[in-house]
């Protein structure tokens, strides 16, 4: 069991987001401690993805405050958040489909190093070396020169996760990283993610529907229902919680 650091890395206070009449987030207060592998679960429409998008700066018109390492990040654009140390993957994986795997990863490193205005080949070569190294870590070296379009979903997700790691972020937001994958693939990917998180001491906040994966990977779990937080606790507490069982078994399955 990894040692949990006690400092708060992310704090949300009074988050509220509406789409017309629909209240997607209703006065959400949330604390995330450094080093946690924190899972967000709940039925469809509970506000999990909306919450991730709020933290990642993707949504306009959000009320309330989001603090990252004690600083208000509510007004920052996604690219600014990336340089502050927040990396993310998307519910439907986003990579540069027409580029090769190595080009994708190199782009991630070039951007993370903020050297995208350079015209120098040497700069590109340096970032490419780092990219090749990351491909080794995520096990995609063999695929380096293939177009991402030709990769199976599981490997695309793995690549996207690796790209999110390129900026060496303190906080990783993964929005349904295993959506659309087989059970075997899910465990394969998430075991790997957990291993990387533990190895690097980063903090993970992820949305996940597969409860087995959550109970295996997460150190903390927050259950969301209808735009609010129902309960938060350790995986064991959540598994034993009667209210959670009612919500989950009643609606999701």
């Amino acid at each position, binding site marked *: 069991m990894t040692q949990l650091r006690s400092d708060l890395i992310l704090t949300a206070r009074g988050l509220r987001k509406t789409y017309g009449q629909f209240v997607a987030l209703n006065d959400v207060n949330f604390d995330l401690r450094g080093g946690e592998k924190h899972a967000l679960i709940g039925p469809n429409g509970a506000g999990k993805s909306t919450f991730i998008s709020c933290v*990642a700066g993707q949504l306009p018109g959000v009320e309330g405050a989001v603090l990252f390492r004690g600083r208000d990040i509510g007004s920052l*654009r*996604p*690219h600014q958040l*990336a*340089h502050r140390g927040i*990396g*993310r993957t*998307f519910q439907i994986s*986003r*990579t*540069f*489909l*027409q*580029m090769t795997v190595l*080009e994708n990863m*190199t*782009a*991630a490193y*070039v*951007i*993370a190093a*903020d*050297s*995208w*205005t*350079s*015209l*120098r*080949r040497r*700069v*590109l070569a340096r*970032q490419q070396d780092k990219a090749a190294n990351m491909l080794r870590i995520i096990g995609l070296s063999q695929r380096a020169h293939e177009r991402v379009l030709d990769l199976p979903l599981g490997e695309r997700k793995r690549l*996207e996760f690796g*790209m*999110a790691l*390129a*900026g060496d972020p303190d906080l990783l937001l993964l929005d349904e990283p295993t959506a659309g994958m087989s059970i075997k693939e899910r465990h394969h990917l998430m075991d790997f993610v957990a291993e990387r998180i533990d190895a690097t001491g980063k903090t993970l906040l992820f949305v996940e529907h597969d409860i087995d994966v959550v109970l295996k990977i997460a150190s903390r779990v927050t259950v969301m229902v209808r735009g609010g937080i129902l309960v938060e606790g350790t995986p064991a507490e959540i598994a034993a919680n009667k209210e959670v069982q009612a919500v989950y078994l009643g609606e999701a399955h």
Partner: protein
Amino acid sequence: MMARLARAEMPRLRQMLFVAGAVAALEAVNRLTGVSGSLLVAEIIIMMVFASSLNLLMSFGHMVSFGHAAYFGLGSYGFALAITRFDVPAEAALVFGPLLAGIGGLVFGALCVRLTEIYFAMLTLACAQITYTVLFQWYDFTGGDTGLTGFMTPRFGLSEANFASAAMVLALVCLYVLWRVVHSPLGLAIRSVGQDRYRAEALGLSPRRVQLVAFVISAFFAGVAGTLFAVFHGNAFPDYAGLGFTLDALIMVVLGGLNSFLGGVWGALVYTLLKNFVPLMTAHWELILGLILLAIVLVMPHGLAGGVKRLAGMLGWGALR
């Protein structure tokens, strides 16, 4: 290690051989076919630069511009106005063409990159129409619809053949710079935003900033082409910023092949040839031209560059990328 180096150097050697061969062929046509041949070669070369500037936006930034002639026209007028209105010596005025085009690209680009896809394209069209209208109607300054003429000896007095050779050298420099841009960290950033702006943003890029940089570079090289065109003919007309040239550039890029560096080059070559020779054969040349374009697009969905690449692949000559 040696094997790796050798493999890395091989395509490069082939590329250089290919470029040398292409230059030699063009120069041979330039020198052996008389004045009309030289004029045609010069036009082809200028259009290669123009189309390649748009190709940077379209093939790599996935930004479709419906108003690229604005920067071609601004190139012509930046050069011509510097001479006629500010008494700059003609040789020195050469830099003002690309400069004005670049500034135009900065101002209009800053507006256009606020929108994406078809809305971006419509905004580029609007900006080009504004440019055209200003050039067309500001009689006191731009000469209005009569344009600017008689401010210099066309081609600086160079013979047609020598001008075509000089233009070729300049075009090679432009294409080399564009090539370096595409294969640099900046080029990677431009392609990243073109393919998935949200991923690029999440990694730490400001999509608008990247697109603006691409837009300015593209406008600058369109301005180089426009300046060359003004030197070529010794004049500047509002039409240089008009829809006709915009369409020509679009057709050249699509015909030449999207997602390929040489798309603009191939497209400019074939389209300029068609435009010059088909009218000699038939009065219904626009119809014939349309049919030929249709056939090429249907047979080669990746354009001429894609077709050439496939052919090269069949011949086991995979270097023509």
